[in-house]
């Protein structure tokens, strides 16, 4: 009998792993499949259907209008304006956040006393909700009583209207969101910097390379994957900017901060023009997919991921 046991056991295990496991597998994934199916996959199809219809979200009649919604998009001056604002915002926010993040992370990448306190102070912006951020920056940049204007006056510069000005508001939102994303980008860069082997730096230093040269030739190339991740992630989030605009300018003044998602929300849930908004959402979806694909394609050429 004892000799039989080892021969039989693998057979039992194999049977357990093979036949009958499909039922177990599907049973375990079924809650997730139902939830993601109903709230993640089904809406993608419904949204596509909606974009060919006219719907006010309330009445059950949703007549087909074909490509009408998409055709309207091209002729809608507010949409074109929203695209322009979104592009300007993204083009400033993404590199801005990366530069600030890299700078702060480089400063924090050393072992001095209280370094964990400094790091926590840098990370903490991550925990601040977008609405809190908006309220704080409205107050900081207040044209009459704001701290920023006090600082400007202190160095002899005149007060600025900031969020109350059509020509400045978008840039204030850029600065505000860079602050809000500092914690995130610092964490990413700090993790990447800590992965740079100290021996490489030491060897180069012995060969006489200056700190600046070492940063350019050793550190920067090794940051490639972190850069790629941040470019992709920050761009996706920049194209979806909404909360901070809602909390500060509500798209104004004079629509100067109306970005795509703000306009989309306004069309769908304020003006109840859901079909048109769905078409806008699909346009945004395609743009995000294309940009992400291009970024990965470019990265394959330039980023070393070994």
């Amino acid at each position, binding site marked *: 009998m004892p000799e039989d046991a080892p021969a039989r056991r693998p057979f039992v*295990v194999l049977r*357990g792993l093979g036949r009958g496991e499909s039922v177990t597998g599907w049973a375990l994934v079924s809650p997730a499949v139902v939830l993601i199916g109903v709230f993640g996959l089904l809406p993608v199809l419904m949204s596509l259907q909606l974009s060919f219809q006219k719907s006010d979200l309330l009445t059950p009649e949703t007549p087909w209008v074909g490509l009408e919604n998409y055709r309207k998009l091209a002729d809608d001056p507010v949409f074109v304006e929203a695209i322009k604002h979104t592009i300007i915002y993204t083009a400033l926010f993404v590199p801005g956040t990366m530069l600030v993040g890299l700078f702060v992370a480089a400063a924090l990448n050393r072992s001095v*006393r209280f370094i964990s306190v400094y790091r926590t102070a840098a990370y903490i912006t991550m*925990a601040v909700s977008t609405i*809190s951020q908006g309220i704080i920056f409205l107050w900081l940049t207040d044209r009459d009583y704001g*701290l920023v204007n006090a600082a400007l006056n202190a160095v002899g510069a005149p007060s600025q209207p900031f969020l109350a000005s059509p020509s400045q508001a978008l840039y204030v939102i850029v600065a505000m969101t860079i602050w809000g994303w500092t914690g995130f980008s610092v964490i990413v860069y700090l993790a990447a910097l800590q992965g740079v082997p100290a021996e490489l730096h030491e060897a180069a230093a012995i060969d006489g390379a200056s700190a600046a040269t070492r940063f350019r030739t050793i550190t920067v190339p090794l940051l490639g994957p972190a850069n790629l991740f941040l470019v992709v992630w920050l761009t996706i989030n920049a194209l979806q900017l909404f909360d901070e605009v809602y909390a500060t300018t509500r798209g104004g003044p004079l629509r100067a901060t109306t970005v795509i998602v703000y306009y989309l929300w306004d069309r769908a849930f304020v003006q109840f023009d859901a079909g048109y908004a769905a078409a806008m959402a699909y346009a945004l979806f395609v743009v995000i997919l294309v940009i992400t694909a291009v970024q990965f394609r470019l990265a394959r050429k330039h980023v070393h991921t070994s």
Partner: protein
Amino acid sequence: MTKLQLSDVAAAPVPTLAHSDAPPAPPARRRRWLPFSPWHLVLIPLTFLLIVPLLWMLVTSLETEGEANRFPPVLLPERPRFENYSEAWAAAPFGHFFLNSALVTLVVLLSNLVVCSLAGYAFARIRFLGRGALFVTLMATLMVPFQVTMIPVFLIVKWFGDNVWAGLGIDHIGALMLPNLATAFGIFFLRQFFQTVPVELEEAARVDGTSRLGVLFKIVLPLSLPALSTLAALTVLTSWNDFLWPLIVITSHDQMTIPLGLSYFQGAHRVKWPLLMAANVMSLLPMLLVFVGAQRYFVQSVASTGLKG
């Protein structure tokens, strides 16, 4: 006094015979002109600048309206006015906001941990019919921005409210939980981690007749606590600070979560800055405390969002 710091000792190069002809380590470390690392002179102003917005919120929350409406600004209130907090608390149903946020976050968190663990384990370990195709299909939802799905999800949630239970429908906190009970990211993240758990441990238990569920709960999950904590941190942060979805489905004050309630409060007290800032501090406090307490997991959750995936 010049005190040698532990970090300096750790960073000092170990002298070896092989490197005896190499130049000595940078001398700056030993010849100190300050009793502390000069880096503090960079780090203190830098981190101060980063938290100025938060400090200014705190200062303003303790000022009188007269002090707040002065220019140049009053940098420290004459006498901290704590009444701003009690007045803000009384001016809006903040108790409801906190309770709703806590309830929504708790339900979403528990559901995500359970549902994503079950699915993540199945995708990591069990060979079942259609596994590959199903996994790819679920992961594809990660690429879809929320704006594409939010209008139909609004209609679906409305349907649930009308046909299943009103508590899940529009203008109920159930509507805030329902669409977020499971995420493709959670499944992906846990699957990746489960694949690193040594399969031999599981096989031994399977031979002894333990069921798949038993193996998952008795062996795999206890070994996966770091991954579960990281996913938990990410889920809590996302759920607690979510704004757009609550804005779309909630209009009643007693169903609002904190970010939405704060936004409503802002609309009602537009230029009463001390009151607004007191409300802001109160609304931020729970998340800041959680963040500082579990910082390690929040840091890991950021790193794992993209760098590993």
